[in-house]
């Protein structure tokens, strides 16, 4: 692994409180937002965050579960993927 940064994507029908609820989970797990962009694409709320994790003891599986669970409650799809998944595909 060359970095411990994750791309977090949130896609779904727009409603009040998505950003607040999702970032609350991130704060609970000590996940820092490095960059954030949010837009409406094809009528869908689309938020993309670059997030960093410092802790050696970071529990990715638990964080992913909490994020996906929160997304389900909000009716949006949440994915937490290591940054390399995108770097490898789109950068040489």
């Amino acid at each position: 692994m060359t970095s411990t940064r994750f791309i977090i994507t949130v896609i779904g029908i727009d409603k009040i409180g998505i950003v607040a609820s999702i970032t609350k989970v991130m704060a609970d797990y000590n996940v820092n937002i490095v960059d954030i962009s949010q837009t409406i694409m094809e009528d869908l709320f689309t938020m993309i965050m670059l997030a960093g994790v410092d802790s050696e003891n970071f529990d990715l599986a638990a964080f992913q579960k909490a994020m996906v669970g929160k997304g389900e409650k909000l009716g949006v799809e949440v994915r937490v993927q290591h940054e390399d998944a995108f770097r490898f595909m789109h950068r040489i």
Partner: protein
Amino acid sequence: MLIHPEEILETIHMIKAENFDIRTVTMGINLRDCCHSDIDVLNENIYNKITGYAKELVRTTEEVQNLYGIPITNKRIAVTPIAIVAESCDTEDYVSIAKTLDRAADDVGIDFIGGFSALVHKGMTPGDLKLINSIPQALANTKKVCSSVNVATTKAGINMDAVAMMGHIVKKTAEATKDADGIGCAKLVIFANAPEDNPFMAGAFHGIGEPDCVINVGVSGPGVVNSTVRELKDPDLGEISEAIKKTAFKITRMGEMVGREVSRRLNVDFGVLDLSLAPTPEIGDSVAAILEAMGLETCGTHGTTAALALLNDAVKKGGSMASSYVGGLSGAFIPVSEDAGMIRAVELGALSLEKLEAMTSVCSVGLDMIAIPGDTSAATISAIIADEMAIGMINKKTTAVRLIPAPGKKVGDSVEFGGLLGRAPVMKVSEFSSEEFIARGGRIPAPIQALTN
């Protein structure tokens, strides 16, 4: 942000809507050090070696899948051809070894295990003969074991005695699994020029030039290529080729990344990336659909071979730039039962066995997952195998045959295997006899293409 949001969404769309997956992480395990004259000791050695190396394979692969958010559909194991491992064993029958492989596969939680295999392209040893005769019962008494027999190479020619024998073995395997429409035959491949590092089933085995343990990865992604071609606005064929190359590059990069991370975590060598386009029965995740996207009314019509040649070449060009070590089969697969577009083309009457044979001369791998009438003679099956082996031998490429003579079924019926194996419409074979030709036996000499030294 280092990566553009559009690129991020493109990757997510591939996974979510276009069925992009890493088809398999396959661990190759050498079993040569398991040899023993006592069959019980041999079985115990094999079980311990496999479960020792592979105990963390499934867990590690799932961790990597979750880290990157890329689905890894199958975890598999390939072992040294059992004919070699069991040769010194004092026994007449190798079925118990197949059962051991199956038990080890179950206990480590993988999907398939390949290597119940023999390499007999020039001749057979007593161990090879015992293995081949064990195949029908081995496949009938196991769930995850896959078998392959290499009967031809460009360097050695075609062992027609083995070809004649395999016609009978395919029939017996269908008969032994007739309660499940002959599903045993879906796990049996007959090869020319079999690669030693192929991660795909049913033909995976761990070749004799390989290290003790290795990780090979097979990517997939016909759905992604299909969407790419369909999104182009009135392209010419050069533009289609270019778009496929770029897409193949992207999906192969993901396979490379996953393979390297799995091998790093398991502390096992990374072998090769196999950049085959392997379809699934899912709608749109189809090689036939890609050919149709190029402008053919249906797969199987005139022009299909040319379109497939373009596709296969573009996939290789894009993929080979994306990985440090490309190997295995690396081309487009055209398994009929596993590809909804191929099934449709057969049912429309557009795609015949003869056309499929022509298509195999420009792609990997061969006549794959094709159901034929249950009463097809062993000699006809052998003759179909011989034709396909000749294509491989002369063109210096891998070809393979995986036929299912579906017991009690005739043209117009179909057989249902479920899962990745899909559904196969029973296809017509020639009514004319090849009996005398197959009965001659012997060896078709190595072609002039073999004399390269």
